[in-house]
């Protein structure tokens, strides 16, 4: 079967799954809503409870889940390709811990000044992820002409540990209420109750996915090793830089919306590779679609399993992800 046909089949298959999930998710919840009443515009929005639940609570939450799931899954694929390590995650290189530091600072010191109508926490989280990206990149670049992925990995792991220490340090001085808010944020939650964080992350998201589209073939070549990729005509350093920055920005954008929701960036790429094979031209679009469906699905479970209590979705992904990770480790001989 030619690649074009496999590509079409992949898009149709995973696309159908994603669309179905997006259509069902906003309708399910502790309170039953009636679609006809949601779109009954003769009733003023103020009095239309069904429309309020649908447009204010569930739709932004579903869209946030789709956006964050797609970003984490695609960023996971790119990081795994860049580091040539199938166990890399979007959080391996310190981006999410940088974001966590930003968020914790914003919560603890009660920063209220947002940016363009977005509240301070997502802005601070995204800024924190940028700081982490710049530091890790500078470290990896310092002693090499190109980008050393080994140094990148070491720098990322080190910065992860260091930022975690700073998070704990800030926590030590926080009030109980702030500590609780921080903990909730760290669990990863999609309860955005507005479209603002999604809209704010949109430009970064679009830019990252445009670069991902270009990266698909270079990532295939990188899996041969940098020297072989270079001799096939690829500008390896440029591809590695593009991969690092696009995947880091995608991670930063996703964390700014939903917090560090774990395991999406590793479960989805692996499942997708089992289905479509390792070619990044298929893995990237499939992971994007499947990641969106998966996180929306997980959030649906999180919202309903202990209703009326709404669990943070990060708990559900971690409960699925932990055993999945173990299965991966045991499965490989």
């Amino acid at each position, binding site marked *: 079967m030619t690649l074009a046909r496999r590509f079409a089949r992949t898009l149709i298959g995973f696309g159908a799954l994603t669309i179905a999930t997006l259509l069902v998710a906003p309708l399910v919840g502790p309170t039953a809503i009636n679609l006809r009443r949601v779109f009954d515009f003769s009733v003023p929005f103020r009095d239309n409870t069904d429309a309020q639940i649908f447009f204010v609570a569930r739709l932004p939450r579903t869209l946030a889940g789709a956006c964050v799931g797609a970003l984490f899954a695609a960023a996971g694929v790119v990081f795994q390709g860049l580091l040539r390590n*199938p166990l890399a995650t979007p959080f391996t290189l310190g981006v999410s811990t940088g974001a966590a530091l930003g968020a914790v600072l914003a919560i603890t010191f009660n920063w209220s000044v947002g940016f363009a109508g977005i509240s301070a926490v997502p802005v601070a989280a995204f800024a924190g992820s940028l700081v982490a990206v710049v530091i890790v990149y500078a470290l990896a670049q310092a002693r090499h002409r190109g980008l050393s992925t080994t140094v990148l990995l070491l720098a990322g792991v080190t910065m992860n540990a260091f930022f975690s220490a700073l998070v704990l340090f800030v926590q030590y001085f926080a009030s109980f209420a702030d500590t609780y808010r921080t903990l909730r944020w760290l669990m990863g939650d999609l309860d955005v109750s507005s479209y603002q964080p999604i809209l704010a992350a949109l430009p970064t998201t679009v830019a990252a996915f445009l670069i991902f589209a*270009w990266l698909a*073939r270079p990532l*295939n070549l990188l*899996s*041969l090793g940098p020297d*072989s990729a270079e*001799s*096939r005509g690829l500008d390896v350093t440029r591809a590695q830089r593009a991969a690092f920055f696009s995947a880091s920005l995608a991670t930063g954008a996703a964390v700014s919306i939903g917090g560090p929701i774990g395991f999406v960036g590793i479960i989805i790429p692996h499942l997708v*590779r089992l289905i479509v094979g390792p070619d990044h031209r298929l893995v990237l679009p499939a992971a994007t679609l499947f990641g969106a469906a998966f996180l929306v699905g997980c959030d649906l479970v999180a919202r309903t399993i202990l209703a009326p209590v709404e669990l943070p979705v990060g708990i559900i992904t971690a409960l699925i992800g932990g055993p999945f990770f173990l299965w991966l480790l045991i499965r490989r001989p």
Partner: protein
Amino acid sequence: MLQATDVWFGYHQPRIFTDLHGSQPRIFTDQHGSQPRIFTDQHGSQPRIFTDLHGSYRAVLRGITLAVPANGFVGILGPNGAGKTTLLRVLAGTRQPQRGTVTFDGTPLTRLSRAALARRMAVVPQETHLAFDYTVAEVTMMGRYPHLGAFEIEGPEDIAIVEETLASTGTLDLKDRPFSTLSGGEKQRVIIAAALAQLHAGHASQPPSPHPGVLLLDEPTASLDLGYQLEVAALLKQLHDAGRVAIVISTHDLGLAGTLCESLTLIRDGAIVASGPTDEVLTPENVRKVYGVEADVMRHPSGQRVVVPVRQSGTREVP
């Protein structure tokens, strides 16, 4: 023809760097050897003097000159750390020499785009480990990378080329197997097939290139057992004799090099010890000079050259 002229390559910049404006040619001095050597370079427009007096600069290649004929089979031999791999990288254009030029069919490598060069020259490393489980066909298809646009999907012709090169390396029946499940010899044959797919100009290309592409192989048999070594050697000989590629091979296997190569270049500490037709270069004196080993070089009744290392001579000459 692939030609390296007075190629220098090192890992650190010299500590003293003088740039004298005047009318003299460029001068480069090197004091690592027992005698300081001065090389002049008249290509640059700005006359300069580079001096390295403190040994902070590790010259890996020192003025190597090498020519690979359009249908040549050239061996690069030398002990560990002699600079064989670096030389191959410089020839492949993946490392820029600090000094000197590498030209391909008369054009300096620096003036060829990566893709243009990749279409004419392919590299086979000692071993290939994939990060993900690609099939043999997918790995071979990666050779078509420099022939396709950024978002172009490979077409029927590329698929035909991949099948053709797999067939010519005897690996077509492995097409759908995961690459990681192959034996060492099979892997090398598949990587050679990918290299051939990379050099394939396409069936519709007109006019077809007058010269075959160049295959650079860095110790391609070093991690293979005896049977697979012969398998890969036979394939290389067949490809070369069919006029499909010119070959440059670095190896530690003197017998293999002596049997396959038309000409040899012996290097030590980044400098050429001997270079020329295999008969003239593969001599007991040169083996002693390069490896510090007393050896007999003989002709086996099969016609192959055999190098029998007898003992260490302890007189590795300092160049």
